[in-house]
């Protein structure tokens, strides 16, 4: 038996799927969490059942990709049963979709979910009456607490029934019918104070809203970096001990494993705690319902630069890692805004670039270190916003339209936080892991052949060969090689300088160092990010991203070098 879950975004379809199948699907408290359809298999009373979780949709007119996915599925695959999940506290709007589902003449069960929230708001729905009017079974549930699930399973085994209600074909007559039905089945008792209203009074306040948003962001980064630091140090020391032990043994194979693979992969795994903690923080923001508030708060500033409030979250995620950030743009419905948001994302300084700043700022700005680092972060944001404005004025012109529903505030369930965090972290590990593993071997080869002294290796030759390109900045070949290697992953810049035993303070001046930091910030999305940009936008924009960022980095680094020398 094949069962399709259909409903508005954020009504609890995925949560329901999880309790029905015992699966680990991602729930969200942000519209548009389920972008593709997902399947879950289970047995009910020994009967095989396949649930298909369709993206949340408001109608079946097929104007957006999500609606098309859902409509095509219903038309072409004809499931045996539709579970139409509706939000009990917002029945009228949910019924528009229900009345459109009627046209498919597929057996249906109406799942009246979130009755707990409805009751808190003083909303009572007469399920029996609703069932009579529509001609389908109606089951009340609270998916997150497992309430009503046994009854739902019983109804599923009975197979639901084809809706009997008569309704006109056009949307307007469906809207009228929905209004009439709601008048008959919904009773609103005296309202208690709604906590969501209280929170919104504060979080969305004209004066406090943005400072609170900034405070949350600041907390998120403290959490990501400070709390993760002990774990980061632990991983770093484990890998360095392993690497030293193994590479100290004789033989080329041990050198490959120790100096190449373990060292290279370790240099990326070191960031795992930061990234996992960032994802925990983001999951909390998302599941609590705050994320969509941020969209509103930041919309004004973003529109100034040709983006919309929708671009804020991907830009913020970019501070952690640009790979998930680029993927997070999927929720932006306007294609031009989406591409602009993707293209500027690599200018947002990800966590992998921090070690570069720390290294150089520590040597050249012993007292002003953190100010310089903050400045670099801010500079990345400025370049990103100005670039976005240019793209939207020149290459990606056009008005952006969007509308999103604000979910109520909810206390995040630890299980849901874990599922979201793990799925995203896993993705990062897979993407970065495979690429890094391969490149570690390449770097190892380049630095050990034909002669194991780096000076005389292929890497040394390559650095010297390309050095003239960066002669205007005055960088030595070691730095050029570091930049080249850093294309794989930015943290490799520091690693390369380490392997080369570069006497940085001796062969570089302060203006050159400043130019180098700026160049490292801007010069090119790393390989993993490029792969993601390619997957999301295609080759044309990927090549554009490479050329644009390199040109910007070169021009800016040159300017910074010259200006810093004059001061």
């Amino acid at each position, binding site marked *: 038996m094949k069962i399709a879950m259909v409903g508005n975004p954020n009504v609890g379809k995925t949560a329901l799927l999880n309790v029905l199948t015992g699966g680990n699907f991602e729930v969200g408290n942000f519209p548009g969490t389920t972008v593709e359809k997902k399947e879950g298999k289970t047995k009910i009373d020994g009967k095989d059942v396949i649930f298909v979780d369709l993206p949340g949709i408001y109608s079946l007119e097929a104007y957006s990709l999500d609606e098309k996915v859902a409509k095509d599925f219903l038309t072409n695959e004809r499931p045996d049963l539709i579970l139409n999940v509706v939000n009990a506290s917002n029945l009228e709007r949910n019924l*528009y979709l229900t009345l459109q589902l009627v046209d498919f003449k597929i057996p249906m069960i109406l799942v009246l979910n979130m009755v707990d929230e409805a009751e808190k708001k003083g909303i009572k729905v007469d399920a029996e009456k609703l069932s009579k009017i529509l001609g389908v079974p109606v089951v009340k549930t609270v998916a997150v607490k497992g309430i009503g699930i046994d009854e739902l399973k019983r109804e599923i085994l009975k197979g639901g029934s084809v809706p009997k209600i008569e309704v006109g074909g056009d949307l307007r007559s469906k809207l009228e019918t929905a209004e009439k039905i709601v008048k008959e089945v919904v009773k609103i008792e005296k309202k208690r104070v709604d906590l969501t209203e209280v929170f919104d009074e504060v979080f969305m306040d*004209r004066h406090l809203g943005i400072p609170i948003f900034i405070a949350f962001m600041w907390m998120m980064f403290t959490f990501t970096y400070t709390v993760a630091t002990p774990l980061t140090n632990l991983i770093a020391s484990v890998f360095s001990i392993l690497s030293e032990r193994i590479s100290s043994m004789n033989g080329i194979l041990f050198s490959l494993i120790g100096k190449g693979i373990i060292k290279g992969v370790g240099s990326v795994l070191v960031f795992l705690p930061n990234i996992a903690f960032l994802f925990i923080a983001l999951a909390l923001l998302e599941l609590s319902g705050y994320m969509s508030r941020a969209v*509103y708060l930041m*919309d004004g500033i973003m529109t100034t630069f040709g983006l919309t409030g929708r671009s804020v979250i991907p830009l913020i995620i970019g501070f952690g890692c640009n790979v998930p950030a680029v993927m997070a743009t999927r929720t932006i419905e306007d294609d031009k805004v989406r591409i602009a948001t993707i293209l500027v994302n690599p200018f947002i300084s990800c966590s992998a670039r921090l070690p570069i700043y720390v290294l150089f700022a520590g040597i050249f700005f012993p007292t002003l270190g953190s100010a310089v680092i903050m400045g670099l972060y801010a500079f990345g944001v400025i370049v990103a916003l100005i670039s976005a404005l240019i793209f939207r004025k020149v290459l990606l012109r056009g008005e952006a339209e969007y509308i999103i529903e*604000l979910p109520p505030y909810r206390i995040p369930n630890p299980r849901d936080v874990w599922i979201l965090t793990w799925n995203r972290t896993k993705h990062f590990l897979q993407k970065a892991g495979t690429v890094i593993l391969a490149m570690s071997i390449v770097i190892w080869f380049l630095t050990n052949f034909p002669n194991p002294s780096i000076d005389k290796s292929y890497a040394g030759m390559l650095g010297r060969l390309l050095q003239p390109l960066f002669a205007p900045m005055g960088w030595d070949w070691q730095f050029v090689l570091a930049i080249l290697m850093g294309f794989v992953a930015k943290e490799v810049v520091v690693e390369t300088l380490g392997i080369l035993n570069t006497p940085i303070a001796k062969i570089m001046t302060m203006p050159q160092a400043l130019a180098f930091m700026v160049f490292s910030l801007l010069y090119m999305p790393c390989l993993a990010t490029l792969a993601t940009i390619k997957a999301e936008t295609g080759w044309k924009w990927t090549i554009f991203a490479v050329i644009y960022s390199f040109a910007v980095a070169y021009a800016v680094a040159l300017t910074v070098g010259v200006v810093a020398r004059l001061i």
Partner: protein
Amino acid sequence: MNLNSKIPLTMLKEGDEGIVIDIIGGRGAVSKLLALGIVPGKKVKVLGNRGGAILISINGSKFVIGRGLAMKVIVHAEQKN
């Protein structure tokens, strides 16, 4: 301002209420707004209008609408007492 006039949603100030009378624009925009419950005859309250997107409450749901789209929602401003 003439109270009987039809104005775009963007012209309502924070705290103002109005009745939706029409949605102009292409079929895509119209059907999307209708499906979300932004339907002629419904009362809409503007909770935030600070230059960027507009924050509204309608039918017990809250929405953030980008300014461009909000221009397409024509409302009848209600007199405030």
